[in-house]
Every structure is written in C-alpha cells, then in structure tokens.
C-alpha cells in the first residue's frame, strides 16, 4: 500500500504528471480566455470554460515565501531540513513546491530570487521542485 501522502493522479491531472515524468512542466491553459492556471482541473477557474488545453511552461519562477521544514518525509531520500515554498511561476500561477540544489538556509533562500523548474524523484514519481538560477545541474552546490 502506497504512503498516504504520495500523489495519485486523476484523469484531469494526468498530463501534468506525465509531463513531469519526462522532465517537462506542462500546465493547463484555457482555450477560451487563454489563461494558464494551476492546479489542473476540469474547468478554467477564470472563466469556467471546459475547453482546456496544455502548454509547456518556461520553468521560470521566483521565490515568494517559504519555511524550512525540519522533519521532511523520508520518501525524498535527502538528508536534513528541506524548504517548502510558495513559488510564483512566470506564467502567473502560484504553487507549493520546494527549492533544492542549494543550502536549505535563510541566507541561501532569498525572497524574490529567480528559480527554474527541476524534476526530482519522490517515491516512484517525478515531482516538481525548483532550484536557484545558476545552480549546477543535479548537484547540491551553493546558489
């Protein structure tokens, strides 16, 4: 039986999860009002249209706010505290994520710092995280 906190996709969200598995951030976009929104769902939260398409996002974002969680799930397979953040995507939506590949400290995690999407293993899934722009790919070096 999977851990109860492991995400389970629904028909409406499956393209998002399939995109992450291929290291791509795909987001729903309304075919009527053309707004990108998050999380994926059956209708557009801006105009209630049920005509939803998908776009591949830039992955660019900024750090709006965060905490540094001292008891992260072991499913991350990382050591020590771990940031949990509100991240503002360049396309508009705000979402909950984590900033990785930098020290998990207030000094390294500055509000408004530019971020880019990165794709991290979590249990059997690939999930969306962010890293400071300038972080070395896949390494835990400082930002």
């Amino acid at each position, binding site marked *: 039986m999977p851990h109860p*906190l*492991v*995400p389970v*996709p629904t028909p409406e969200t499956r393209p998002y999860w399939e995109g992450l598995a291929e290291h791509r951030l795909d987001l729903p976009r309304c075919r009527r009002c053309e707004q990108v929104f998050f999380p994926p769902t059956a209708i557009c939260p801006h105009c209630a249209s049920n005509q939803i398409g998908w776009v591949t996002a830039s992955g660019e974002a900024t750090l709006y*706010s965060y*905490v540094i969680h001292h*008891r992260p799930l072991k499913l991350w397979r990382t050591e020590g505290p771990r940031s949990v953040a*509100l991240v503002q995507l360049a396309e508009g939506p705000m979402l909950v994520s984590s900033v990785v590949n930098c020290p998990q400290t207030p000094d390294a995690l500055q509000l408004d710092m530019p971020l880019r999407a990165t794709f991290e293993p979590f249990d059997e899934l690939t999930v969306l995280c962010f890293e400071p722009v300038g972080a070395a790919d896949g390494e835990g070096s400082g930002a």
Partner: protein
Amino acid sequence: MIPSGAMAIVGAAESTEIGTVPHLSAPGLALDAAANALADAGLGPGDIDGVTCAYFPVADISHQLGVFPTWVDNTQVGGCSWMLQLRNAMAAIHAGWCTTVLVVYGESGRSHPTLATTYDGAKAGNMANQFDQFYGGGTPAVLFSLNLLRYMRETGLTEEQLAAGPVNQRQWAATVPRATKRDPITVDDVLGSNMIAWPIRRDMCCLVSDAGGALIVTSADRAADFPRPPVYILGAGAAIEGGVMSPAGMRDFLRPPYIRTSGEAAFGQAGITPADVDHLMIYDAFAHNPIFGLEGLGFVGFGEGGPFIAEGHTAPGGSLPMNTNGGGMSYAHSGSYGMLCMQESIRQVRGEAANQIPDVEVAVCHGWGGVWSACSTFVFSNSRPS
C-alpha cells in the same frame, strides 16, 4: 437576514476530561460532551430535533444519542466546521425545519487519531494530495506558515514579536485548571524550542489533545425557559478562501480577503465595531494566526498585529483580552479547535470562565478551517438587542 439576537445558545459543555483521554474515541468524546451539554440545558435526547457534527457520520452520532432529527448538517471545512454548522443551524431554526439543534464535536487527536474519524482533505487524488501535502510531509505547521516569511518581510514583524503570543497565552493558561500547559514561558524559551518549520518553533504550535465539545442552540424566544443564562448570537459570518490544504490558492497571502468577509458579516449583523468588543477569541493553530485575525477583523491595521500582541494588549491586564483559556497553544487543541474556541467565549459571556473578564457584554470568536481555507466569526452577548 436572521435578526440579530434571534437565536441563543442555551446549553454548552466540553467533554468531562480534556487533554489526554485514552478511554474514549473521537465519537465517545463527542457523546460525552453532548451528554454534558444536554444536562447543562436541562434537556433530554427527545428534546433535540437537529444534529450537526463533522469527521464522523451525523446519522451515527444521532443514533448513538437516541435522537431522530428532522434536520442535520455534516459541514466539514476543517477546524471551524462547528462554527459554520452553528450558523447553518440558526438558518434551519429560522426556516422552521427544527427547533433545538445540538452541535457536537469530538476528536481524539492525541490517543486515537485514526480511529472512527475521517479527514478527506488529503485523500488520494484530491488537490492537497497531488499538489501540496507531500511537500510539507503532512505537517500543518508547514503549509499554514508558508506566507509568514513574506509577511515578516513586508511588515517588519520580528521573531521575538511572533514569540510573544505564545508567552502571553501561557500567562492566561497559568490560572486555568483544565489547561494542558500552565508553566510560564519566556520569549527566549519559545525561540529556543525545537525548530519545526523555520521560523516556526514548537512553542509557536498548537497542542495535540483529546477533546469534545457540544452546544445547543434554539430560538431566543424560548431562551428564558432554560436553567442557564442564555448566550445570544448577535452576528455570524463565514467565508472560504483557498482549497482545504492548498494555500497557493489564496487571493492575497498577507491580507487574506476571507477574514474581512467573515468579520464584516458578523459585525454588520451585530451592529458592532471592534471598539465594542469586551473579549476576543482568535483560533491560534500557530502563533501568527491571531496576528492575521486581529488585522483581518479590523482590530488593528495591517502590520500592527504583532506589535499589538507583543506590547501586551491581549495579555492579562491588557485592553483586549484574547484567548483567555490559554488557546490552542496552551489549553487544548485536538486538530480542530473551533468548538473549544466558542466554549471559552460562551463561558466568558455567562460569567463562568476560569479567567473571567469583568462585565463581558460582547464577545467575538473567530475560527479557521484547513490551511487559510475557511473561517467563521461569531458575536455573542449576554443581552438581546431590543
């Protein structure tokens, strides 16, 4: 609109024991509190024709109470569910669907958190399950505090000011026999307690307790028929903001609009302003919640909530006594504190609280549900508007 003061609480009680109660499950705590509230009101099960609860089926609770209701409500929006249920009950009584409603709550957050209780917020495939909860490991302190650092940056709120809230509430709790934590603490103690999710420390978090609570609401026209002093409901508000555990959906992370919406509805119906409030409860799941509540309800301006608390205005001897039972951080908190929050307001209005504030005529209670998801505001009074 239901006229201000048209409904009254005529029975109210908590579970016989509170804190650590291993011999009762969540429904058991609810039923124990219900029995106490019925006795408080001088009623029997046959006098109840409406029942509300959350986290377990309302039909099961009715059956165990021996009540056959004509109206029920199972509204489940998190910790303030029982406040929204009370508001719904007022409407149901006003509509004539029932006359006497029992609002009942029980939660075994400490001893039996998974027994006979369901929380649907993070069920497989829900928004919170897919997009929020796993990042924070299911820890409410994480998601509820995501906007705090930005708030501190924008307002200048310091960690010391943030720590002052738990210190003040412990001062209140020191003289509350039923409070779980009564030993005094200092700002340094709070800042030195275990880091949970920086900048939130252990002593900035609510307790994890076992508790029950129940209240009985009926038309104010009948209130004189009951043995205890009636607590009139002058105003009631409620509003929804983000998903239940999905704080990213908030419209404004620093001035959450739903607080103002709920507060204005309650204060407007009651015809009061913050200056009229003698006693205040603001659900303190975490130390920053009362700051947001004070600002959102209009007691202070944006950015002033932290200094207001740190200066002692809500502490013993202050001008606006708040969370006088010690709050969720010192009294008890079992996961959902809205009912216990109202119980302290009711005790204060009746004049029977452990830390009784002299001459309480208007008491305000504000509760939260989920993670910046739901809220509700009540204005209680010992007198009915003429």
